[in-house]
């Protein structure tokens, strides 16, 4: 079976979404830089968005969840932007107070 002649199904998209999700999760777990962790969060949200779009796409299957998939993805994009803004503000404050951006140094509840 030539992969280039088989039509694309929802599972293909789910696989890509899974890879992005796992990459983001491992990124969140292993990066020492706060902004690296944030990038992991963005990757995770993108993997999830890909899943939603795949389920709502009319090109990939006949019975879909239709617009719901796209609308949920829209809301996720917007909320991810808001969350990135707040997380960056926290990171900047942390950097200003401790002069380091290493998450391993953020181990006290004070300040």
């Amino acid at each position, binding site marked *: 079976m030539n992969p280039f002649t088989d039509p694309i199904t929802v599972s293909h998209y789910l696989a890509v979404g899974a890879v992005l999700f796992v990459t983001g999760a*491992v990124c969140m777990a292993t990066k020492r830089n706060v902004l690296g962790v944030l990038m992991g969060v963005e990757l995770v949200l993108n993997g999830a968005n890909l899943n939603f779009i795949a389920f709502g796409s009319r090109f990939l299957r006949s019975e879909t969840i239709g617009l719901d998939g796209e609308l949920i993805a829209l809301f996720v994009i917007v909320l991810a932007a808001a969350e990135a803004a*707040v997380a960056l503000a926290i990171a900047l404050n942390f950097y200003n107070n401790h002069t380091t951006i290493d998450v391993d140094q953020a181990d006290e509840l004070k300040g």
Partner: protein
Amino acid sequence: MMHVPLAALDWQAIFFYLYALLACGFGLAVLASSNIVRMAFYLTLSLGATAGLFFLAGAEFIGAMQLLIYVGGTLVLLIFGVMLTAQDRFISMKTGAGEWVLGAVVGASLLLLLLRAGMSVESWTTPRADRSAIAMADARTTAPIGMALSGVRVDKLDPENQRLARGMSGYLLPFVIISMHLLVVLIGAGYMARTKRVAKGALAEQAAPAVPKARPRRPKSVTAGIVSGIVVNALLALFCFAVAVRERSTQSAAEQGIGAWLQRVVDWSDAAPNWFWPTLGLLFLASVLLLIVVYNWQRWGVVGLIATALVQALIVWNAGLGWLAVVALLAVTLVPALVLVGLLNATKPSLWSQMD
């Protein structure tokens, strides 16, 4: 390589593999790189490739939104953050080998689980039956999305399951909630990330604990006056609220004890509007609070006491209960307030001048 005629190639598949490879490849590059600026750049490319995947799946509005908001907004913000904290020693931070091993093990197991789940459902692994009927019109989702966000689901005009038709509401409520949420979040983030200009001297001052201001000795008469005023006003407030409750209660009039007394007061004030007694009670409570304020050396408490007394007199006079009631009220409220003012000014140096 086997000979595949050009017409048999599924171009959607080819472009899908291209974009998928770019997205996953750059995602893994984000993971593997240790230079924070390059990580940001690879993330940009990965998200751009994901937008391409969105376009391929027929969600053109969401693809454009991804480029506009995610890549053009969120990532610019992220890169600003990277630039602001990009000192030499923070640009490349390496993680220990042990953490990599742990991360790899957990990641691999999660990936296997997700891939297995993704291939498990029959409906997800079969492509669309009538692939020749795929039209660009299916991708024109902009206007239906706009209508759905206004509350009208034009994509579900004739639902197959009639019993679900009543539940096909639009997305108006989440839309409004998200707008409010964004407003709050952005204001909050902007406030949190503001530049705080703290001078060196001010820092020392903030470090020292706040010393309470020294107050002069208060003569016993003034203290007694304030405390008795609090007690009397509290009792009067209680009385007013009791009358108000009695007024509103529908049970038959109790003929003995406090109930009878209260009933007499209610009958006497029949002409007054029905907000009379609760308001009077609230104003007495306000006087209690203002007396506490005066106890805490604030001048505006005294001003408030006089004002409250006058307002109460106005209400009583307006209620048409007779000038005797007005005079009685003034005697209970205004006269003690004026006596208090006199007492505050009696000492030398006067307490009034030492309040703030």
